[in-house]
């Protein structure tokens, strides 16, 4: 009982002291500065980590180089094109170097392979990954988007019936798309690089739930423009404000790029088009986005190699929008993107970006504010620390003989201790 009483007394005294101490702290400006700075930094850093973690498709190079002593760089190029009937028409090739043609892929691959081989030979490092018997050491994919009307079918009593209809964004992909977009799978997998069946489709969780109220939908079939596709996987989309703004939460399905010809025909409207500048070549669907992860034996050389590989790119007249995704969320890169103000917006004007790039750009915008907040917090912290130091110095100067109570420097605490001892 004696101990309990003593503890209670101590607690009461401590409570009184704490009140006084708190009051003093509250009244002290340095304290608030430090609190505010810590809050700002916590918010800024926390949100930056949260936002960047969400964008795993921007960390492809890091994932790709795991376990390797060689650096990789993730480069992307976005091209333009013509949609003859708006967003429901696939993007077709536009003459003048503003588009990327499907046949350009071969030229770019050849140039990138040459760069990789040259770099490998120069550095005497082996690019160990091989595709079949061909040494590659790098990877790429390409894609193009189009809006389409999808009909979901299901077999009921032996009959395949339509159970739902929805407009969705079709992402027509080629190459190793899966390596560049690390999806979280709710079932199945993604379209194999070497197609098993061109009429395979992967849908996102939004569409799967909309059609089937389930994610276990592998084997079900979806009809697009009269062409039947088999679902082989369901991927989970990102959630959150940015994902919503970027359109990630929309209905979406992934098909092979080659299937565009099956769905929309070889004469994709461009033959009928009288628009100037539209190529008369049939079936020349444009690549909206081409991505590559390249070995970088010398820092920065991947960017140059990639730009050199683009058939119609020149520094003075790029015509295509090139993005260096590796490290794009770093502080300096973010500030470099934002400043000079409006420059990035001008560069991006006229391009139709896929949802993942829109999300990345929105992330950049938010990260800029987060970094500003963090920076402001650091400044406040420094000011708070300096002010606290000055305060202690002034106090020491006023009472140099004050004994050291090992943390109980406050006058009230000293009095409390004396009282406790008397009791």
């Amino acid at each position, binding site marked *: 009982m004696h101990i309990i009483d003593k*503890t209670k007394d101590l607690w009461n005294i*401590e409570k009184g002291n704490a009140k006084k101490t708190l009051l003093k702290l509250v009244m002290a400006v340095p304290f608030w500065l430090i609190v505010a700075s810590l809050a700002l930094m916590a918010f800024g850093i926390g949100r930056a980590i949260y936002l960047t*973690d969400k964008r795993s498709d921007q*960390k492809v190079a890091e*994932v790709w180089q795991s*376990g*390797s002593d060689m650096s*990789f760089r993730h480069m992307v190029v976005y091209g333009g094109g013509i949609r003859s009937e708006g967003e429901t028409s696939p993007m077709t090739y536009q*003459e*003048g*170097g503003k588009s990327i*043609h*499907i*046949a350009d*892929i*071969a*030229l770019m691959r*050849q140039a990138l392979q040459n760069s990789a081989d040259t770099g490998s030979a120069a550095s005497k490092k082996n690019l*160990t990954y*091989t595709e*079949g*018997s061909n040494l590659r*050491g790098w*990877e790429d994919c390409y894609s193009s988007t189009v809006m389409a009307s999808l009909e979901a079918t299901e077999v009921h009593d032996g009959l395949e019936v339509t159970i739902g209809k929805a407009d969705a964004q079709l992402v027509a992909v080629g190459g190793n798309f*899966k*390596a560049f977009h*690390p999806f*979280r*799978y*709710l*079932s*199945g*997998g*993604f*379209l*194999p690089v*070497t197609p*098993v*069946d*061109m009429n395979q489709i992967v849908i996102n969780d939004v569409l799967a739930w909309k059609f089937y109220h389930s994610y*276990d939908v*592998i084997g079900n079939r979806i009809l697009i423009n009269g062409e039947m596709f088999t679902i*082989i*996987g369901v991927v989970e989309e990102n959630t959150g404000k940015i994902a919503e703004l970027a359109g990630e939460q929309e209905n979406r399905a992934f098909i092979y790029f*080659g299937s*565009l*010809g*099956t*769905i929309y*025909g*070889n004469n994709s409207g461009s033959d009928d088009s009288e628009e100037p500048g539209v190529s*008369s*070549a*049939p*079936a020349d669907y444009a690549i909206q986005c081409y991505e590559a992860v390249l070995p970088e034996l010398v820092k920065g050389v991947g960017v140059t190699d990639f730009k050199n590989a683009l*058939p*119609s790119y020149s520094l003075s007249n790029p015509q295509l929008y090139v993005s260096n995704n590796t490290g794009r969320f770093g502080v300096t890169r973010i500030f470099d993107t934002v400043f000079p103000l409006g420059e990035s917006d001008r560069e991006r004007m006229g391009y139709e970006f896929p949802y993942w790039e829109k999300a990345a750009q929105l992330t950049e915008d938010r990260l800029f504010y987060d970094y500003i907040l963090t920076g402001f917090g650091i400044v406040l912290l420094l000011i708070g620390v300096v002010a606290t130091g000055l305060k202690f110095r002034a106090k020491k100067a006023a009472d140099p003989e004050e004994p050291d109570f*090992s943390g*109980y420097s406050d006058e009230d605490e000293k009095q409390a*201790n004396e009282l406790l001892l008397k009791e």
Partner: protein
Amino acid sequence: MAKGSARRTKVIKAMVAFIVILALLTFFSNTLMNLTIPKVMGTYASRGNLSYSNSARGTITVDNQTEVKGLEGRTVDKVMVTNYDLVQKGDTIATLKSIEESEDLQTKKDRLKTLEREAEYEDRNPSNNSDFTTYYDAINTAKATLSDAQDTLYRVQNRSSVEEENNEIIDEESVKEVSLKATVDAAAKTVEDINKDIDAIDASIAPLQAQIDVYTALGTPTPTPVPAPGEETESEPAPTAPEGATPTATPSPTPAPALDPDGLDPASPTYDMEKLMLKISQYEDQKKALESQLEAAQQRLDEASAELAECQGRIKDAQSEIDALKSLPSEAAAQNAVNTAQNAVNSAQKALSDAQTQAGITEDKAKDAAEDREEEIAKLKKQIEELEKQAKITAITAPVSGYIYNVTISSGDQLTAKTTVTYIIPETDRACSVSFSFSTQAAQNISIGQPLEVTSGFIKGCTVSSVKPDPADPRGKRIVKCLVESNDAWPGEEITVNAGKGNDNYKCVVPSSAVSEDNNGNFVYVIVGSSTPLGDKYTVKRVDVTVEATDGAASAIKGEGLDKYDVMIVVRAEKPLENGQRVRLEDYTAK
């Protein structure tokens, strides 16, 4: 006492703080764990049946595309086309800068000028035929020295015989000399005597001549020369009477005067004078006889004198030879001199040979350099001519109609004859082909002429044109070449073909989402569990795998340790994982 109480207070405060922190951590432990440990979902690898298709990817090549080459030494001014432009034959692909701006041509001209100057200077150079006179002189001198040395050696070696021989000569010639001296003296005496006799006759003639001169001065007629006694006087023969003529009477002869024994007419007024003259004539005859003897004697004297001189010369020579023998070196020294002289000859001959070789090399070098220069000059002239011819060309035009593909040039590029400017793909009737790599097993069902199913919307179809072993793996792979039926095909476009479907049982079938890929190839993460006092702990272990087959949704994989029944493989993770990373399980079965 006060100090101990303060310490107790501190301990109590620390305990309170610890309990508070512990409570907070306990309360938020799940949240903290969620923040640090990614959640994964795993599934057990299972045996299963997988339907697959014998698919292969290949890249289209256009076999009848036209390659447009550049022009040597020209610079691109402006490129007039972009990829996939449709051009007609003769359309301009790129304009070129004028040749004056071409540095290449100027460089070539400068080079040509330099070479021509060099050739001219070379021609004007004096003939550099090598003069070996010095070497030949040196050889001759050395040979002469050798000959002398050999002669000296010979003489040294034959010193006694030479001396003996010369002594014999001296002896023989000395005897001869005495005899010849006597002969000379006798001949000289005879000559002297005859000369004395002649002088005496001359002395006898002189008074007789003086008397005649007196008679002449006195006006005595000069007599006709009296023939010498016994000398017949020639007289005119008497004319003979013609035959049949009557001989006429001959006048009677004058009576002959009385002559002296000398046949002179003492009655003649010139008798004395004639007498004197006869006497002189007789002296003259005697003198002539003496002079004839003198000549013979003088000849004998001369001959004897000459023989004597020769004899004395031989004696002298022999003596000189004997004297010379005394000054000869020893045989060893003479032999050394011969050897030295022989070496000198050899050296001189070698020097000549070396000089001739060096001169030959120098000459060959100069010849080669001249030939090279001539070749380069000819080449440069041809190139300059070509460039100047090309200078008139101001643009590269399309040789055929079709689509532009792979424009490799841009403004300012320097072209060469080997530069590929672009390719032109035929607008129609493209001859396209694709090569696919199939496994030998899959290729067994493929035959030439067989159409393959193309899983691309752009291509109508493709037909197998050849099946050959893959040089990279002749046993395991086959290269199947197909002809593509499409006018829409572009080079570099990838197409996939199916050569039938298959159905096999596999030991390890997982959802395709379990298979990840990085620069080292395909891999899966296996969940490794372990029990700890704080509960079960899970980590992931990377296992490299080979994808045997896939139908898209599921994949049959092969990897180390995956054939066990209790292997759980990650099929879904919140974040990218790393080997050895701790994870927490969301569920034990895939949805």
